[in-house]
């Protein structure tokens, strides 16, 4: 699917984001971290729906959700109200979910707002806070297992739901939107989007003004694009069913499957949760959140352009992955070669990650290595291609390479390269230079330093003559 606007297609997204930086669940004091935990260890009367238990709102969850709303430029409600969404499901301990609602008097945390893509503004409809259901697992296959097993560790973990207007017109845009949203969430530090199921997405799509189809269960950003592309083609060929159809994305087969949901199951009987008083969001809280707002991807991109003279496109790509942008800044802190390093990170590292379907945050490469490589290339110790090869090696093996750079360097007889090394050694060893100016014997020490900086690869004769010439200039 190309990026050209497809005016026949309308796509809206519903993104669920775990607030993974929280220590506790949304309405109880159970630890919120459910990754790699024994089943049903982080449970209490509240998140197990035991009779008589009552919810108490996690203040920090409100702050994190508020930060998201403000980052997206949403209108924050003066007070937010929790609603009960009533439906029966084995993963829902109370058989209702405490959520928010924007109809029948409901007041979600925030409404409106937008995310700017390169050539598109995507409007946000609402942002709300809600609890996650438990996790259902099957022994063996979902279709043959005679029973379901429920793990309530995830039950009650805080989720922020972000709903867009149907402004997206291509599956690729949908992916770009999610990428941008993800970068914002990561910069806010509220969601570690790498964690399994930390960011989940439902999509609704209509083609040529036809009926709306909802696609659920989309696990990854790539799948969002795939599932939507499949739906666009399917709907263009077959049309959509009357009424609202819900389809499941089967990522193994790469198709969407219709769910024959009984119509009556859609009646969620939303009504206010009387156990939670309406939460007043004060001006002070908003001001405090704004004051603590970290630099967001767009601002960071603009700063990269200004501060490091990066091309817009490069700055955009770097800042749409927080860990990549961080790696970039840490590397150039060690050795300031912004263009070269940006280029490497984007074309080599990101290209590698995309091929392997890995996330930048999984990279183990040290900024010191990137800096050393860039310097080695700049100084002519190794050529550009060798530098890139070493970079990829470091990225794939996760091993430090700073010391190995010289193994790749053959005898250095090139005078220009040696001059560059000598310049650096002179700059970094002012005292040794002074000594050499006074005492000729001390020249050997300088030669030794240059040899060391090159891993012993420079021609000693040429090195001596370059040093002597330089000393002569100085004296």
């Amino acid at each position, binding site marked *: 699917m190309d990026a050209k606007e497809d005016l026949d297609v309308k796509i809206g997204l519903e993104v669920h984001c775990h607030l993974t930086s929280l220590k506790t669940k949304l309405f109880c004091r159970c630890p919120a971290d459910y990754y790699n935990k024994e089943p049903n*260890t982080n449970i*209490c009367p509240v998140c197990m729906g035991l009779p008589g238990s009552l919810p108490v709102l996690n203040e920090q*969850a409100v702050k994190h959700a508020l930060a998201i709303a403000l980052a997206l430029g949403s209108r924050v409600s003066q007070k937010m109200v929790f609603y009960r969404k009533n439906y029966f499901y084995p993963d829902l301990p109370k058989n209702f979910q405490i959520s928010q609602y924007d109809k029948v008097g409901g007041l979600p945390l925030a409404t409106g707002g937008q995310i700017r893509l390169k050539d598109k503004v995507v409007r946000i409809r609402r942002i709300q806070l809600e609890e996650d259901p438990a996790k259902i697992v099957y022994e063996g296959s979902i279709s043959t297992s005679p*029973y379901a097993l429920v793990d309530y560790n995830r039950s009650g973990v805080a989720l922020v739901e972000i709903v867009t207007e149907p402004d997206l017109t291509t599956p690729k845009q949908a992916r770009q939107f999610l990428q941008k949203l993800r970068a914002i969430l990561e910069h806010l530090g509220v969601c570690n989007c790498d964690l399994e199921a930390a960011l989940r997405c439902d999509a609704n799509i209509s083609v040529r003004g036809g009926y709306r189809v909802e696609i659920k269960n989309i696990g990854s950003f790539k799948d969002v694009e795939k599932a939507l592309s499949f739906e666009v083609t399917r709907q263009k060929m077959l049309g959509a069913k009357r009424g609202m159809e819900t389809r499941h994305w089967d990522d193994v087969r790469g198709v969407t499957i219709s769910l024959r949901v009984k119509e009556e199951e859609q009646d969620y009987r939303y009504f206010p949760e009387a156990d939670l008083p309406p*939460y007043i969001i004060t001006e002070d809280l908003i001001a405090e959140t704004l004051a603590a707002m970290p630099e967001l991807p767009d601002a960071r991109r603009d700063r990269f352009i200004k501060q490091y003279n990066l091309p817009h496109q490069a700055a955009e790509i770097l800042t749409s992955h927080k860990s990549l942008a961080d790696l970039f800044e840490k590397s150039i802190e060690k050795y300031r070669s912004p263009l070269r390093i940006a280029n490497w990170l984007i074309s080599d590292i990101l290209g590698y990650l995309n091929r392997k379907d890995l996330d930048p945050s999984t990279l183990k490469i040290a900024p010191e290595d990137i800096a050393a490589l860039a310097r080695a290339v700049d100084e002519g110790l190794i050529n550009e291609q060798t530098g890139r090869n070493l970079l990829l090696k470091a990225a794939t093996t996760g091993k430090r390479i700073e010391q190995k750079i010289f193994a790749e360097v053959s005898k250095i007889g090139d005078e220009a390269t040696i001059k560059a090394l000598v310049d650096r050694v002179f700059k970094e060893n002012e005292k040794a230079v002074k000594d050499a100016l006074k005492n000729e014997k001390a020249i050997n020490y300088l030669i030794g330093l240059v040899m060391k900086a090159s891993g012993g690869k420079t021609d000693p004769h040429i090195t001596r003559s370059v040093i002597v010439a330089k000393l002569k200039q100085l004296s």
Partner: protein
Amino acid sequence: MPKRTKLGVSAVKHLAWLTRIDLTDKEAKEISKQLTKILNYFSKIDEVDTSGVEPLYHPLEIGKVSRSDEPTPFPADEILKIVPSRKGRYVKAPRIA
């Protein structure tokens, strides 16, 4: 005048499905009669002019109630102990339809 509402057997069965209570035909018939009578009594509220009135969901206003993000783990095994059907530490449930 208050409206007259009838909650027929099929409507009762639909409600029973929504709230997952299995009803026999006989029960549904009996309940239909009882609920219809009660609903017609409820229609009395139509007589009240509520235009311009806000609903009152919480009897008293309480501002802002929240807690800090500090964990206090609960002894999970005390809860697992009372689960009727288990498989290891998992709660066992019938499969999804």
